[in-house]
């Protein structure tokens, strides 16, 4: 197989490079890099890239993974300086260098010939990295020309067409003459990949190439990458924060934390038997579709699996996950309340005393608190929502699942009163609500609370946390200034931030902390219904897990009805009792989470389930 590939390649190429004979393409040793005159970004990082294998460099934001990858191309972004280490391109890996060479000391002119030809790069966001004023065919062809690939223009044209079909795009002239803005996000990313593979590089560096793509497209892109690297014996370096993706494409994994590699090894071993606590924490934080992994505990909502954040470890009793079918949230909820309650006896007590209008307690199933009846909305001929019926019950979470553009944010904002353009009814305890929040009564506003997607945008940077959080109280109640401050402090305790945060500004908080503060703002008024719009999507995995953990605890403590909006189907079992799948404004699947996941009725749901990457694919 490999041999015949090799021959086919030689035919196109004209020159044979005995690539498969080398064992290692690039060795980075003791790489150290820092902000000019400042902190270290990379601290003694070493790794090896081998032909035909993909090394995944895993880490959360700020861990230095992109910096490490770009160092392999001797490309330092402005403001960074090299502190030490080598990146050796091994003997025979490139047709330009028969001998091993340290890329970091290579003169710029020689390095340039390696970039894009021998070592290729696939950027994170093709929308920013493709040149908007050049046709996509030309953008591929110019790499070939710059690296004198092929003997003449004709051969290069053939190669452009060939590589386009290799990445699964049309290869005809008309397609090549398109501009990037005329392609979809997935197509743009595949152009980026084609550009990288065009010169048949020895090494390819992929910087989170699937960020922002929907799961089906991500699946396709990952497949393409995997096939091309193994087929052509390319050494791959895949940068990501998503361990499920790692399981899908990588042979080896290196985990980065604060500029260091804390653990590395073959993917299968590392994902199944992580040794370093950070790796374990990361793995535990990955939402899991099936729950087949070894789970220690953590209160699952729709059993089988749960997000288990590191601080939960060893606290929950095993056996919670035993029940598999839906309809047993009460049991789990009680357990959870028991476990979590111990740490915080004062949790939200003050808030609760003020008497929430809704049900306090765990998972009692009464009549739905909120009902949506035949919700519709359209802009001109574009239908955003097409007759949605949905119930939210006290103590229960409904997950609203959909891709961007499916109408999920519109739907959730309609519940919160932020969208007054819909027809149909939103009922709170049987009473029809006015579409606009300004026309709802204080009591109605108090009972439904909404948490925004981005914690970087939802808190006014010029106001202290305490000042921002007291707004709901100020607008709905007649509490004195001191009472409001006390309630805000209690809410900050309840979200495990602590009352010391009350006088801080959002700029001093990390993303996860800000999102907790935003949740606290929604809780300060003791609502009955909490609408969470993609509130974890802007956060790192481990932070995401902790926020979800927090939501579950709060729900159990307070019996909140929750609408959890997300595009991440993998979270379903961890958070939701009921699952509603939204596609182009229509609910295509709706029911208890477990039964929807087991027996999806609609093809769209089935396709989501088929394409979602899981940890079980390792190796």
């Amino acid at each position: 197989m490999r041999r015949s590939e090799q021959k086919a390649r030689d035919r196109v190429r004209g020159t044979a490079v005995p690539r498969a004979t080398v064992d290692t393409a690039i060795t980075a040793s003791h790489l150290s890099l820092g902000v000019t005159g400042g902190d270290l970004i990379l601290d003694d990082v070493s790794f090896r890239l081998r032909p035909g294998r993909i090394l995944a460099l895993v880490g959360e934001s700020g861990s230095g993974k992109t910096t490490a990858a770009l160092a392999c191309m001797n490309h330092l972004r402005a403001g960074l300086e090299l502190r030490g280490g080598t990146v050796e391109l091994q003997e025979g890996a490139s047709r330009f260098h028969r001998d091993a060479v340290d890329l970091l000391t290579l003169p710029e002119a020689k390095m340039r010939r390696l970039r894009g030809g021998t070592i290729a790069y696939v950027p994170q966001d093709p929308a920013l990295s493709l040149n908007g004023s050049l046709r996509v065919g030309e953008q591929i062809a110019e790499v070939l020309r710059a690296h004198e690939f092929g003997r003449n223009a004709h051969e290069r044209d053939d190669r452009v067409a060939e590589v386009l079909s290799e990445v699964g795009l049309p290869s005809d002239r008309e397609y090549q003459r398109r501009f990037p803005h005329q392609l979809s996000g997935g197509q743009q990313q595949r152009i980026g990949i084609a550009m990288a593979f065009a010169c048949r590089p020895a090494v390819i560096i992929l910087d989170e190439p699937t960020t922002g793509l929907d799961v089906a497209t991500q699946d396709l892109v990952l497949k393409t990458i995997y096939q091309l690297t193994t087929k052509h014996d390319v050494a791959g370096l895949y940068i990501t924060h998503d361990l499920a993706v790692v399981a899908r494409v990588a042979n080896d994994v290196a985990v980065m934390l604060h500029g260091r590699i804390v653990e590395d090894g073959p993917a299968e071993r590392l994902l199944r038997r992580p040794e370093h606590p950070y790796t374990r924490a990361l793995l535990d934080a990955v939402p899991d579709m099936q729950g087949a992994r070894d789970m220690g505990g953590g209160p699952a909502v729709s059993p089988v699996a749960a997000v288990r954040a590191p601080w939960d470890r060893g606290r929950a009793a095993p056996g919670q996950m035993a029940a598999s079918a839906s309809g047993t949230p009460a049991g789990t909820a009680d357990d959870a309340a028991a476990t979590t309650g111990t740490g915080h006896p004062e949790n939200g007590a003050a808030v609760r005393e003020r008497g929430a209008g809704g049900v306090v307690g765990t998972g009692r199933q009464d009549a739905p608190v909120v009902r949506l009846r035949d919700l519709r909305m359209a802009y001109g001929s574009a239908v955003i929502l097409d007759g949605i019926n949905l119930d939210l019950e006290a103590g229960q979470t409904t997950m609203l699942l959909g891709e961007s553009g499916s109408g999920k944010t519109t739907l959730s904002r309609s519940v919160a009163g932020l969208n007054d353009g819909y027809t149909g009814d939103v009922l709170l305890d049987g009473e029809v609500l006015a579409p606009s929040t300004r026309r709802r009564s204080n009591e109605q506003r108090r009972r439904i609370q909404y948490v925004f997607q981005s914690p970087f945008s939802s808190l006014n940077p010029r106001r202290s946390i305490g000042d921002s959080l007291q707004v709901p109280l100020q607008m709905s109640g007649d509490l004195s200034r001191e009472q409001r401050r006390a309630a805000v402090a209690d809410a900050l305790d309840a979200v495990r931030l602590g009352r010391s945060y009350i006088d801080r500004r959002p700029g001093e908080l990390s993303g996860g902390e800000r999102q907790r503060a935003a949740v606290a703002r929604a809780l300060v008024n003791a609502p009955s219904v909490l609408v969470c719009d993609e509130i974890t999507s802007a956060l790192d995995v481990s932070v995401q897990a902790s926020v979800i953990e927090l939501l579950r605890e709060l729900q159990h403590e307070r019996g909140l009805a929750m609408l959890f909006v997300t595009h991440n189907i993998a979270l379903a079992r961890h958070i939701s009792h009921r699952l509603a799948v939204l596609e182009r404004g229509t609910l295509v699947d709706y029911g208890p989470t477990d039964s929807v996941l087991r027996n999806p009725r609609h093809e769209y749901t089935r396709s989501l389930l088929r394409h979602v990457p899981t940890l079980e694919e390792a190796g």
Partner: protein
Amino acid sequence: MSLKNPMTPSTGQLAQQSFGHSESRGDARPVSFARRVLDQPAAKLGFVLTGLVLLVAVVGPFVVPAWTGYGSNSFAGKPFRTGVFGTDNLGRDVLSRFLEGGWRLLMYSALATVLGVGLGAVLGMFAAFRRGWLDAVIMRFGDVLLAIPQLVFALLAVTVLGPKGWVLVLVIGVTHAPRVARVIRSATSGVVSEDYVLASQMYAVPQWKILSRDVVPNIMGPLMVEVGLRLTYSIGAVASLSFLGLGMQPPTPDWGLMINENRIALSLQPWGVILPVIAIAVLTVGTNLIADAVAGASAGRVRSTRSARKKSATAARGVTATSPDPALSAAPAQGAAPGETPAPEQNATKEL
């Protein structure tokens, strides 16, 4: 910053973030805005220069007859007599006229700036906040005003209304307004699209309160830049009109007018021209330096906790898409030019 955090697994019950997330609470408070402005050497120089001229203009009128021995309009001796700075063509003492000739220019410029920035800020804010037809009307009307250069517009007004102080203030202020409105509108729409404004709407906070608590504090940066810039241009415009003989009228002692009166005899008695020219030059350079420093501080181009943090975060993918600073589209360059740059999206200011 992050590397110093020792890695401690399972940090106890309360730790919501296990492995010391890079930008955690240990960080220093963001440096105050005034601090960031003053940290720039250019700003210090700007304040010194502006302060010097201000001192001359404000203190000057009080020392004139006593200190120089002559009133600004009294006959001091033969025309073009040489002395400390000599006399002008009508035999008036140049120094006395210079000392008394600055405060009107400053006052008119300041008033025009206040009027222009105030009017422009209010219009720009409402345009962005209300959107819809009000926005369209305000901005289209602004476009029309922008088509006539500021000075030409002023000449038109002076032709009809005569060279009076209030005409200068009014016409310069009004012509600033659309330029300011553009900048403030873009800054405001950046703020209005933020979720914290939506959150206030959701809690049914009254509109005026949203404007005053959420919007205004978050556009202070660009607003301050505009104040500095427009002041520079107001000074230039008032002085230019006086220089053309269409602002202050003789025999008022005024820097712009002095240049006009004395330039015929530039080689004979240069001081009558040079003193006011230097004063105006130093003043405008000073205010422009300040405006530039303010722009730098508000665009975050000055080194601060945040920019250092951002720098190291560029290494990994920035999860936070939201930029911390409202994009400016001011240009401490082209104020008086017809039309602020709509071109480079962010801070055409310069990011020097």
